[in-house]
């Protein structure tokens, strides 16, 4: 018997990478279901294609590179689903393929696979799609069988007119419609209550911290209040109309591309919120969330270095920033 090789701790928690990713997928069920309900069967096609292609690209890459396959940990499936959900229903299907290929092969696998990427795969590919193919994916339709083309909700964000003034002209959806998802947008991002359900599930399962999404939205809210004529309604629309809530729950909470220290994670998401607000207000740039996340992905290790906790019994707390930069 090789018993002498056994070392404490002799018991291990039930948590596994697979389990965490499965929880994220479960948390995405409400938004995925509502995407299909509101935007039709096409959403289902996008979702299946997103998950399928992401898993395929990961499998394919690891096969070619003769690496051990990690598709069973479900992380590729999560990335694929996130990409599908963050596209509008009118996006051509090949864009889904393009998105997952970029995310899995270039953002995730080239730096070394799960845990090694600097950028959030779904976010980087989403921003790239936005930059390269804007006309194709900003052609908003309202949910429903008629699929009427609508004013882009995000252009409201970019517009200078006070949103509260617009509400009376019924050009902006009411908060009730926003909450229920009766607005145009990316298929997984419109139904706010479904996002909140996913949020609650992830918090209960302890996959994410309650304060991370809240701090990001708080940062965004305060920034808009500060720069946007202190209008409460405008600030609230900024939180609810675009990608912000979806990103707060499912994007900025990504482990690998964010900081590791608890305190650093709060600063990280606060800054994402603030940068998003600044991009939206000062540069009239909708979709600032993605860019804000990418900027903070790069800065995450710096925050880790700054926020290193004090070790029990010691007084110093510094650790070389150069060290935390490595993954």
């Amino acid at each position: 018997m090789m018993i002498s090789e056994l070392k404490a701790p002799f018991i291990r928690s039930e948590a596994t990478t697979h389990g965490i990713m499965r929880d994220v997928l479960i948390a995405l069920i409400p938004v995925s279901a509502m995407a299909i309900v509101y935007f039709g069967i096409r959403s289902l096609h996008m979702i299946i294609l997103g998950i399928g292609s992401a898993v395929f690209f990961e499998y394919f890459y690891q096969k070619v590179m003769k690496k051990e396959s990690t598709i069973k940990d479900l992380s590729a499936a999560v990335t694929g689903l996130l990409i599908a959900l963050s596209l509008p229903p009118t996006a051509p299907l090949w864009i889904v393929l393009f998105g997952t290929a970029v995310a899995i092969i270039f953002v995730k696998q080239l730096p070394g696979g799960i845990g090694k990427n600097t950028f959030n795969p779904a976010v980087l590919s989403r921003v790239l799609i936005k930059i390269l193919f804007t006309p194709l994916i900003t052609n908003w339709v309202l949910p429903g069988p008629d699929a009427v083309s609508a004013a882009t909700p995000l252009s409201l964000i970019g517009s200078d007119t006070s949103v509260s003034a617009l509400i009376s002209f019924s050009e902006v959806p009411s908060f009730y419609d926003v909450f229920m998802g009766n607005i145009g947008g990316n298929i997984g991002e419109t139904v706010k209550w479904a996002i909140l359900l996913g949020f609650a599930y992830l918090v209960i399962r302890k996959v994410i911290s309650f304060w991370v999404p809240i701090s990001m939205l708080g940062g965004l809210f305060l920034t808009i209040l500060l720069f946007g004529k202190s209008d409460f309604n405008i600030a609230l629309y900024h939180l609810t109309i675009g990608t912000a809530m979806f990103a707060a729950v499912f994007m900025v909470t990504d482990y690998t591309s964010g900081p590791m220290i608890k305190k650093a994670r709060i600063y990280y998401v606060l800054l994402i919120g603030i940068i998003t607000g600044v991009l939206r207000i000062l540069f009239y740039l909708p979709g600032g969330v993605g860019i804000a996340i990418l900027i903070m992905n790069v800065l995450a290790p710096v925050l880790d270095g700054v926020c290193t906790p004090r070790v029990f019994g010691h007084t110093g707390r510094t650790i070389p920033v150069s060290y935390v930069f490595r993954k």
Partner: protein
Amino acid sequence: MNLIKYLTTKGVKIPDHKEMTRDLNVVNIKTPKHLYYSMDMHIGKPAKPVVAVGDSVKIGSLLGKNQGGISANIHSSVSGKVISIDEDGGFRGKCELITVENDYKDEKVKLKDLGDDISIEEFTKRLQEAGITGKGGAGFPTHIKYEMEKHEAEYLLINGAECEPYSTSDHRCMVEYADEIVKITNLIMKIYQVDETYIAVENQMPESKRALNQAIKKSHSKSIKVYELPSIYPQGHAALQIDKVLGIETKEKQRSGDVGVLQSNVSTIKAIHDAVFNNETFFRRIITVTGPMIKTPKNVMARIGTEVAHLVEECGGFYDGERINITGGPMMGKSFGNLSLSVDKDTTTLLFLKRHSKTEEKACIRCARCIDHCPVSLQPILISSAYRTREYDLGITLKSESCINCGICSYICPSKINLLDDIQNLNKELEGKDDDQ
């Protein structure tokens, strides 16, 4: 109570399985025919045999003598005859091993009565004579601790937080010997002129708290308080407990005495009681024999020197299947293969777990759970990767030597990375490198 500290307790909830033995009274078991005393039962120098083969001994007869410095006496736990003295293995490794054959007469030699007015010197001398060592698991000779801290003690902190899953020996000790614990506590407070005593217990063990409170009430003591700790692993760690209960942080390279705290495990306190009031040497202890592989888990009163195999037999034997034998708890215990080892003074628990196939290590996903949960705020994953890339100096920067070996990082890791192993290996590499004090 420091509410903020209570709420921000770092650590982790672990399924504790204490229900297997929590409510079982401590039972006396048949003493075995042969008892084996390793002279290496404590931290420090092993004791030196002072008996010869053929000598008759009684309970309390000195077998091995304190070697001076950090060392402790070892006594016979049965009456009978010394039948051999040779080199053999104990839980702490190979050492001189005295074998005594039991004559089942249970004759005792007692230490002499101390009288009423006991000085610090008499008290610590008694601890030394009785061979008392820390019963919580470290096995530090108690008389040395009480001698070193004779001028500095402001608080007495009694550790009843048995945070390891499965272990219930301290819990049973508190439930069944609460009066004795309170009685000796009052005496120690008088001897050391300490005004405040805290007995730390876990809040999931209400029975021990109730028993202690009753005993305190009966003794009319106003300065002993039961302090409830959250049932989060690791509440039993000495320095963390001082910080939690008293709000005093033990700095690097300080001991509890340096911050004015006299700290003992409850079972050690009970042994001190027996030495002072019953004039007994340390010859037996409560051991929790438990785990899914043992047929009838029990809390047993076992004589020091009893073979593990004998205890297993007394507890109904094993279920079939692959097994891991552990002395101590599942988080910090040690595994052993040989059931003919015999229990020593700090054997708290004998745990027999089912053996599972080895968990395969996966890539780190940077979930940071190890960092979030480390009770001393280390960054285990960074230390682990420093070890794996052989950058041992980074271990110093990352303060890896502050690790308390609690095992939470390895326990909680979803990728099943053996973080504690890496940290311990790195610390082994660092040992000797900064030995310049």
